């Protein structure tokens, strides 16, 4: 047999492969399936938008739902809606996945004799429910989240009509303490609404208002407005964060004062006292003896904040024209939460903020509110066997109730549990009967986050399965109990009831607009302090258990109370603070880690008063030595993505549920307390690496996330502004000595990187000063561009497919590694805040390093200045990725979209964007599909694309409008105008001379507040 040399062998292989390819080329038969009856408004290929409301959290932001051929494909903010004003947070962005979730119940399910849930018909399911109600409606109780005012009223009438024992509204992060504090201070029933937009000093007393609380999106936008360096003098409002942990909210502050957790109330009173000493005129007599004995020195000992700082803050409060002090959000709500909130609101009142920036809405409608007290009473009733039928909707109490309440044991005593969950969860999996509700995108409904805002939900897709609206099912079951019951129930279904509830207004107009919005919030204008103030008992939090540390269980900005954990994007989008994905972690200080001898990823055992958790350690500088923190939301045992079912380990919890280690504690008013326990830490000896998107926060003095002091900005503003943002002399850090000093910085004009005859040069401006790190843009990019989910293992391999990431840098960083410190070390320092959240995506370089190395011309420069990526040309050499200094190119190692997207998730794919296959490189395209869509009417009308007609998905989502996109060749475009900042403008990795189309505007270091 002749020897086969290498060349010959390759030839043969080539022929074989060619033959195989030719054989595989036989055309697949595809069908064109038109409508039977095409809806009049619909033209295939053209999107239709519907206004609706997001139900992912109680903030109730307005939505514009983009639908294609009857399927919602993207959620965007409704610019007319007063809450979100056009933006939409990360959780809202991905809530579209609920409708297409593989965990959805497709039919009613009933628990059979074998103990397993099996599908039944609706007739049978409703008959079963009616039978149970007939046997004893008095033992029936409803438990669930807030379904909106109209549905709430129907539920109340239903409870009365069928003679059920009652209805409890349950919202894990509901802050009843705030309402109680207002009642104590002013004697009115109202939940305060904070308006940060007009503030000049914002004091957050442990309030993570950008992550949780009443309205995160709105507050981010307001704060950005108040701190707009162009519109406001001297850098705008100052923002001070007082709290134990450098949270995402804290990372946006000018000053972080790491106070002892739970002492926010003491601190607020001390600041108030100091403010009065500095000349704040407030009616001291109204306070009674409350401030007697309060002084900076004493407070310093109790709060861990030194007296000088307290006096300085006091002076700042006295000087402030418009103060907003925010009381702690859920994570820091202790058993003294009401008194703490009252103390903070008292500071607001004394500084004249109440009715100006801290509004007390005058509530007229009285729908049932969340009450933890009522919930605990229900649990007691369940324990004593008084509840025979429990109906659960919009809540997952099995996961979100602390074990100390005995909820699980009580549930075991309920003979018949009915769940309305559309997606399976821990509670519904224990149900005897599952009557799957519609998802918000399939539903009629409304929401009223505050008086004057009535927001509507309308279906944007025909129900994907045979599931039915909860209200309709309950009404049908109620009516089948007899005419007497039916007469007491409202006629019609959810749709007609909703229209009746809106009888006073133009329903169709409201539907088009997204609701009806009053011009202003009806508020209590004149409130006086009640005499109860003097009796306010502001003291340390009462902590249970033993240990040297306290446990901070804080809401996660991405997972919420855990309800968003089922959505894979919220698992894969990195946490804004630690950049951990798909897992839980415990944050502890470097000193604590050293003392225990643990490093990042080492598993720690946390022993609290209520239980033990085993969770990987994440040592960082941004947390007090006496505090450890675990985010709420993980630890699900049910769900394809929420548990480890996706990896073939069903029933295994993903991360830990920190609620399982929290004692059942309540505050003075009976509201739920979260900050309640001490904790002991022990090393387990095991270690498991995290799947993180960013392993270090040291930018090594390269200009990626740049900052400059306010003084430099003021000095630069005096100088004449250049027409085109040239490369600033050495980044934006004011000529500081560094290793990069010697590099070439060629001033350039990005407009020149487009073809001369092209009317467009697409460009972007990213204001790092406005970026909060909230990751709404990241989530929006995932949904818009069909980016696949890769899972924890692949993230560990560095194969995250996000086109847009938010890099989190601590200061300018250090060039040399510090001996003895691991490279991955977290460089935060206690009490210092200099975090630069830098959105990083393809910079669309004019001199792109990726282009010349592509052997097949798959990436190239387009006449409009875009760095094009042609998927069908790509052969997957990955040279481009290796040569990209920004590391924004992503490679499809697998057919992720096929493997990790079980049906029917594929239905939400954006038909305007190619789904990339295995072996192909991909990257941010500046949403080129949106440019093409905007080009159509422009070409039809023989004009250019107007400014604002193309908004990229990231820019659309951004609550602070940190991202601006547009045509750089048009000097009047918003993006060009935003660039007219010769001082703040910089390009990432300036020294490489890549001529990016993305210009960053440096963060402004406003510095600590002056005394």
């Amino acid at each position, binding site marked *: 047999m002749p020897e086969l040399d290498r060349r010959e062998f390759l030839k043969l292989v080539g022929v074989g492969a060619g033959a195989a390819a030719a054989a595989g080329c036989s*055309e697949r*038969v*595809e*069908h*064109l*399936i*038109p*409508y*039977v*009856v*095409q809806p009049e408004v619909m*033209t*295939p*290929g*053209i999107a239709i938008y519907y206004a609706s409301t997001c139900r992912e959290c109680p903030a109730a932001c307005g939505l514009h739902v983009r639908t294609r051929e009857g399927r919602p494909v993207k959620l965007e903010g409704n610019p007319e809606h007063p809450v979100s004003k056009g933006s939409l947070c990360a959780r809202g962005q991905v809530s579209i996945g609920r409708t297409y979730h593989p965990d959805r119940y497709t039919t009613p399910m009933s628990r059979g004799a074998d103990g397993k849930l099996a599908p039944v018909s609706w007739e049978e399911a409703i008959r079963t429910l009616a039978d149970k109600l007939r046997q004893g409606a008095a033992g029936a109780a409803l438990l669930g989240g807030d379904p909106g005012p109209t549905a709430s009223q129907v539920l109340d009438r239903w409870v009365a009509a069928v003679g059920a024992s009652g209805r409890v509204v349950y919202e894990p992060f509901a802050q009843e303490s705030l309402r109680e504090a207002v009642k104590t201070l002013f004697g009115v029933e109202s939940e305060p609404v904070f308006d940060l937009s007009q503030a000049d000093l914002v004091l957050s007393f442990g309030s993570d208002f950008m992550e949780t609380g009443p309205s995160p999106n709105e507050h981010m936008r307001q704060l950005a407005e108040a701190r707009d360096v162009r519109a406001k003098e001297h850098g705008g409002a100052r923002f001070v964060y007082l709290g134990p942990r450098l949270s995402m909210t804290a990372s946006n502050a000018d000053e972080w004062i790491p106070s002892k957790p739970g002492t926010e109330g003491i601190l607020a009173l001390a600041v108030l006292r100091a403010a009065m000493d500095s000349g704040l005129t407030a009616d001291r007599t109204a306070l009674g003896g409350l401030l007697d004995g309060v002084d900076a020195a004493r407070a310093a000992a109790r709060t861990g904040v030194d007296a000088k700082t307290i006096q300085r803050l006091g002076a700042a409060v006295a000087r402030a024209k418009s103060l907003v002090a925010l009381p702690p959000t859920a994570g820091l709500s202790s058993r003294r939460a009401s008194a703490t909130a009252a103390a903070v609101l008292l500071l607001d009142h004394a500084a004249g903020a109440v009715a100006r920036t801290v509004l007390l809405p005058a509530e007229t409608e009285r729908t049932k509110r969340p009450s933890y007290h009522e919930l605990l009473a229900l649990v007691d009733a369940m324990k004593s066997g008084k509840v025979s039928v429990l109906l659960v909707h919009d809540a997952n109490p099995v996961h979100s109730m602390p074990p100390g309440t005995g909820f699980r044991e009580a549930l075991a005593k309920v003979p018949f549990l009915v769940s309305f969950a559309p997606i399976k969860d821990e509670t519904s999996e224990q149900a005897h009967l599952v009557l799957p509700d519609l998802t918000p995108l399939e539903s009629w409904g409304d929401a009223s986050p505050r008086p004057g805002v009535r927001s509507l939900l309308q279906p944007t897709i025909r129900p994907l399965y045979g599931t039915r609206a909860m209200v309709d099912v309950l009404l049908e079951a109620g009516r089948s109990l007899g005419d007497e019951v039916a007469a007491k129930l409202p006629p019609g279904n959810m749709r007609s009831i909703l229209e009746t509830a809106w009888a006073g207004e133009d329903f169709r107009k409201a539907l088009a607009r997204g609701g009806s919005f009053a011009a202003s919030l009806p508020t209590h204008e004149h409130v006086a302090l009640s005499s109860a103030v003097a009796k306010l008992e502001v003291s340390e939090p009462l902590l249970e258990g033993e240990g040297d540390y306290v446990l901070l269980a804080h809401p996660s900005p991405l997972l919420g109370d855990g309800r968003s954990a089922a959505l894979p994007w919220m698992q894969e989008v990195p946490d804004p603070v630690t950049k951990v994905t798909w897992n839980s972690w415990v944050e502890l200080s470097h000193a604590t880690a050293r003392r225990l001898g643990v490093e990042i990823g080492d598993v720690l055992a946390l022993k609290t008063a209520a239980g033990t958790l085993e969770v990987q350690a994440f040592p960082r500088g941004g947390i007090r030595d006496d505090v450890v923190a675990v985010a709420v939301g993980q630890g699900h045992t049910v769900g394809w993505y929420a548990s480890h079912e996706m990896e073939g380990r069903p029933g295994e919890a993903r991360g830990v549920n920190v609620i399982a280690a929290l004692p059942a504690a309540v505050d003075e008013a009976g509201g739920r307390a979260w900050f309640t326990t001490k904790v002991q830490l022990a090393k387990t000896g095991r270690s498991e690496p995290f799947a993180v998107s960013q392993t270090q926060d040291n930018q090594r003095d390269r200009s990626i996330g740049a900052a400059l002091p306010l003084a430099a900005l003021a000095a630069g503003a005096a100088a004449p502004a250049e027409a085109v943002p040239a490369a600033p002399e050495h980044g934006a850090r004011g000529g500081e000595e560094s290793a990069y000093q010697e590099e070439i910085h060629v001033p350039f004009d990005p407009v020149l990187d487009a073809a001369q005859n092209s009317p467009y040069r697409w460009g972007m401006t990213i204001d790092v000063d406005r970026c909060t790190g909230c990751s709404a843009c990241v989530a929006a990019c995932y949904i818009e561009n069909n980016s696949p989910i890769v899972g924890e293992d692949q993230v560990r391999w560095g194969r995250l497919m996000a086109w847009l990431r938010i890099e989190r840098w601590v200061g300018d960083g250090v060039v040399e590694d510090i001996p003895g410190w691991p490279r991955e070390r977290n460089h935060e320092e206690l009490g210092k805040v200099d975090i630069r959240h830098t959105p990083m995506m393809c910079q669309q370089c004019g001199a792109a390093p990726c282009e010349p190395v592509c052997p097949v011309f798959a990436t*190239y420069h*387009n*006449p*409009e200045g*875009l760095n*094009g990526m*042609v*998927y*069908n*040309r790509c052969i997957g050499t990955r040279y481009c990725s290796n040569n990209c200094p920004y590391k924004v190119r992503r490679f499809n190692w697998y057919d992720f979209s096929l493997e990790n997207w079980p049906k029917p998730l594929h239905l939400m794919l954006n038909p*305007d*964007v*190619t789904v990339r296959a295995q072996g192909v490189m991909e990257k941010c*395209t500046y949403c*080129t*599909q949106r440019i*093409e869509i905007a080009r*159509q009417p422009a*070409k*039809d009308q023989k004009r250019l694309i107007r400014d604002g007609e193309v908004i990229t998905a990231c820019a659309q989502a951004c609550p602070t409008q940190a991202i601006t996109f547009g045509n750089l060749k048009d000097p009047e475009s918003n993006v060009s105008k935003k660039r007219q900042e010769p001082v703040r403008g910089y390009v990432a990795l300036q020294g490489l001379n890549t001529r990016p189309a993305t210009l960053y505007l440096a963060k402004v270091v406003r510095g600590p507040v002056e005394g």
Partner: protein
Amino acid sequence: MSSLPVLPVRRVALPAALFLLLFGLVLGLPEGRAVSAQQKSSDAAFEAQRRAADPSAPGPVQPIPFSHALHAGTYQIPCLYCHTGTDRSRMAGVPSVEVCMGCHAQFGGDLEGVKLLKQYWENKKPIEWVQIHRLPEHVKFRHNRHIQAGVACDTCHGPVERLDKLYLVPDTKWVNLMNADKLKMGWCLTCHWQNNVSVDCLTCHY
């Protein structure tokens, strides 16, 4: 059909005239003959239908033996009358069953194809046509841009008005000494080059 750009006036005027003509015939004739006129389709229609169903003719057999030659050729119905939205949307509008029934509720009931059509309509089932003009994957072709630019439908779809049974009428252009078959990239590009329109990759690939 015609190689001229389809003018908006013709889009409305022709079918309207056609309809009036047929309707006028029906009304103007004695009752007995009107019924028979409604029932009896022309021999040409039967012949066109037979040819559309002919399995030996090129092209796939469709679920309904629909003849483009009869509709677009003999009756001169403009393309956009049935394929609505093609001038506005990226996608070509394949007519819904309702659009077919708009005419065929009135006549053609004796034709086998129309009987099939009525079955679809009664069962409220969509017709699954076999796709003939299929672009390679990864191309975002925009019908509306080409219609707006005055490119005639038959430039890509062939002489549809003369075809009873539709098939991909082959066409080859020579690009750089290589042959480029119809609906392949080189074939598209020759036209784009000739007309001096965008040949930027991102125009079609994204």
